[in-house]
């Protein structure tokens, strides 16, 4: 019930933003639309109940994560633009295994998505049983340690995401 109410509030907020500026007509229709959509999407958001997450520290870490992510994303673009425009096309691509200790659905999703938008890496697949992420790298450098299967960027995000989702 708690989850349904939360989803309803969320979708209602999204609806109101989409139908900005607010008017009586839109607000009333929004109630119907938001309740329909929250009923439909209820099953998609299974997992931990929300009340264990209502912890301010998690939200602060999430803000920190957004800041780190934005900076990494910007660096990624400069990096790719450099490789694209360089006449010799300096790439050394390959797919690598990286170990991760995250377990929750949300944590893994966020990790995979942040990896995709950070310098030279795209996540290809996840093997949950062994805790491995397969990552395609544009330029394999020293930041990847083959023996321990660690990648610096992944470690950095993992530390933050563990505090938010686990």
């Amino acid at each position: 019930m708690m989850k349904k109410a939360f989803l309803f509030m969320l979708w209602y907020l999204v609806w109101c933003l989409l139908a900005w500026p607010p008017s009586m007509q839109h607000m009333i229709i929004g109630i119907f639309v938001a309740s329909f959509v929250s009923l439909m999407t209820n099953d998609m958001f299974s997992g931990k109940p929300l009340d264990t997450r209502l912890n301010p520290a998690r939200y602060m870490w999430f803000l920190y994560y957004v800041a780190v992510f934005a900076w990494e994303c910007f660096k990624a673009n400069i990096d790719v633009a450099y490789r694209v425009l360089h006449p010799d096309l300096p790439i050394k691509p390959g797919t690598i295994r990286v170990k991760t200790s995250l377990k929750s659905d949300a944590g893994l999703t966020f990790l995979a998505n942040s990896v995709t938008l950070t310098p030279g890496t795209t996540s290809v697949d996840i093997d949950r049983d062994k805790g491995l992420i397969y990552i395609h790298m544009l330029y394999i450098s020293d930041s990847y340690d083959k023996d321990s299967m660690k990648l610096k960027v992944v470690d950095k995000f993992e530390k933050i995401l563990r505090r938010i989702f686990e």
Partner: protein
Amino acid sequence: MNEKIGMVVIVLGLAFDFFGCVGLIRFPDVYNRLQASAKCVTLGTCGILLGLFLFKGFSGAGIKALLCMVFILLTAPVSAHALARAAYRSGVKPWGGTVVDHYGEDLENIK
């Protein structure tokens, strides 16, 4: 003032979109091309939308631009990942200059 900053951000966004397209042509195989398109196009399009928001402020169009940014940031990496995985599983071989291919080695085990 806001309009000037908005103009600069839009031009930057267009530049990154352009780099993404150049990468799409220059890179050798599917996976490298995905890298270029997933990254540059995400930031480029977000830049254009942010510029639009700076032009319009908190009006109808400005807020929709912000919402679109959130949706693009959430969906672009997912689609890139799905394309890369599907390409691998349907047998598209990586480029000849690929250095290591751990995923190709493990592919049999994780099906």
